[in-house]
């Protein structure tokens, strides 16, 4: 049985272990004990509500309860860009036209922007390779949307998710090599490391200040704009089904797309519902139509997947499932069909 739950102080070792498997391109999950230790501290304080809402970083882990092993991680930052500036390129359009020459050029441009400042962010999603099957990825990623649906007042108006950009098989980024490299004079990996260490001021100091015409870039780099890493394509589809969409913002390093949505328009906000728990053999089990169930406690938030169906405001779960949720019969839980087409 798998449960996604709020992280706890003693999860650091398991988290480090997971982070060691991530590889490059994921700025928020580097296997660095001091950094991750600090992140766990902030996450625990976030769930305990001892720090202001805009400073919070909610970190969740997926646990294989039978093995007592940590097999996945994901997070929600309540607001980006309030302490360190948050940069993206916004893709804009400039039209150059001359009636006299009968020329009409529609040019795409990259504008350095801080437009997404203050947005909440889905980030740091990683699932152990051995568990990438069935609905595990959906459970892990969507558990966060249930959290937001349960506690919407803790989040900004908008939610974003940065997707890993297109990289060559050797891990290098064609976009970086054609653009960032000229201004930073360092390798992609190093720039990426510096960002994750919070040394972001260098971006402001070194990035080109003026809008860039995408046409100036080599074709390989142009093609990478807004394109996700091969391994990230399923994650992108999954979030798009939840109501997030690409609206022309990309990462300044690898040009990976930023997905965004108004929090109030997320499927989890519109379609999730509260139900009261009954301890009973699930009566409305429907194979192939899994349900996400979350408890309603901020400090000990837990989510599982099950095959039950809520009926008239009540949901039947087995004693084991109720125990996994750290709930008891009669408690309210929040439910959401795992797939958007149900």
């Amino acid at each position, binding site marked *: 049985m798998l449960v996604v739950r709020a992280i706890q102080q003693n999860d650091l070792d398991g988290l480090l272990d997971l982070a060691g498997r991530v590889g490059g391109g994921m700025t928020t999950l580097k296997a660095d004990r001091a950094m991750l230790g600090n992140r766990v501290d902030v996450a625990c304080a976030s769930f305990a509500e001892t720090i202001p809402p805009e400073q919070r970083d909610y970190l969740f882990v997926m646990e294989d309860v039978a093995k007592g092993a940590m097999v996945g991680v994901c997070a929600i930052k309540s607001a980006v860009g309030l302490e360190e500036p948050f940069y993206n390129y916004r893709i804009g359009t400039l039209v150059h036209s001359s009636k006299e*020459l009968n020329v009409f*050029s529609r040019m795409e441009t990259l504008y350095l922007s801080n437009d997404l400042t203050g947005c909440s962010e889905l980030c740091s999603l990683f699932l152990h390779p051995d568990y990438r099957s069935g609905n595990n990825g959906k459970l892990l990623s969507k558990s966060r949307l249930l959290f937001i649906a349960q506690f919407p007042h803790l989040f900004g108006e908008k939610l974003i998710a940065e997707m890993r950009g297109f990289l060559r098989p050797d891990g290098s980024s064609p976009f970086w090599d054609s653009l960032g490299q*000229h*201004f930073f004079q360092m390798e992609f990996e190093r720039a990426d490391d510096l960002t994750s260490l919070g*040394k972001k001021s260098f971006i402001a100091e070194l990035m080109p200040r*003026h809008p*860039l015409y995408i*046409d100036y870039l*080599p074709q390989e780099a142009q093609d990478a704009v807004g394109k996700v890493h091969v391994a990230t394509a399923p994650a992108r589809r999954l979030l798009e089904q939840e109501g997030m969409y690409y609206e022309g913002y990309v990462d300044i390093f690898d040009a990976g797309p930023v997905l965004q949505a108004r929090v109030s328009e997320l499927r989890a906000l519109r379609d999730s519902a509260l139900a009261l728990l009954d301890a009973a053999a699930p009566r409305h089990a429907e194979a192939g139509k899994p349900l996400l169930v979350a408890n309603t406690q901020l400090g000990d938030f837990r989510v599982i997947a099950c095959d039950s169906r809520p009926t008239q405001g009540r949901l039947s779960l087995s004693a084991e499932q109720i125990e996994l949720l750290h709930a008891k019969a009669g408690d309210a839980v929040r439910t959401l069909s795992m797939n958007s087409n149900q």
Partner: protein
Amino acid sequence: MFVVRAVQFADVAPLTALAAVATPGVHTLPKTHEAIQRAVEHSIASFAAQVDLPSEESYMFVLEAGDGSLCGTASIAATAGSQGTFFAFRNDVIQQVSRDLNISHSVHALTLCSDLTGHSQLSSFYVRDWGEAGHEAALLSRARLLFAAAAPHRFSDRFFASLAGVTETVNDGEARSPFWEALGRKFFHMDFLEVERLIEGARNRSLIIELMPHYPVYVPLLPGEAQAAMGQVHSEGELPFRILSDEGFEPDEFIDIFDGGPILQAHKNSLRAFSSSLRLRAVEAASGDNDGAGANYLVATARGENFRAVLLHSPLLEQRDEVALSAEAMRALDIASGDPVLCVRL
């Protein structure tokens, strides 16, 4: 004896013949009979105009051989942008400094600018058989500035000249500009020579601001061959480049927006026609006066109209107040003994 003089109406036909052999896209002189006729009429009117402030005047000169044939022409416009803003790329340097990361380097960016609009512009320089041209080419090019020194109120304090950039000949014999391919083509969607023909080599047309990039172009983003072409002069522009550099012009700050060719510019105080020219009284030379050691000089009339200039080999003039001229030179300059002339070393 070669003489440079203001253009006359009778020069239209020989100028048309001269222009017919000039390489397209390289030389800025007008090509068609009508365009040449317009330019000549405009020049004659400009020389005749009473000028308070430099404006749309343009002065055209020809190089005439002893036999009366025309071997070259050159022009100077009072202001580059009298018919519309003159556009160039300014070569800006952006310092990239991060103290945290101990990084410090510079990035070049090209910014579309109108800085040169009010400057006086040298243009349309062309000499037949330029490969063999000697001092006469310098006489033709620099005479324009001696005219400016004789009539400074007709010109700006700053001067510039835009020279053709490098092109390569592709298989069908067409000239291809690597700078244009990387930049202008993306906005114009047409070949370099086609656009030059359409806008007649002008850099002061409003369609430029309609089509060219509004934001700085970061040079490192351009392909290597386009970067290499920046500020590089076409082989047929090497002679005027050398002449103008000797005169005191500086390249590097601006380049042409289409082919990336160099734009040489200078304040008049750094030009030799202004800073080193001598105003001397012309006297009739006795035989042998100008033989022996000395230097080559350009000698130009100092009057406001009927400008003329010739070459002279003479003993050093720097400590003198008169210059000895042969009867032939006096005739070529259309002056009499005692008239003032401007002299500057070649």
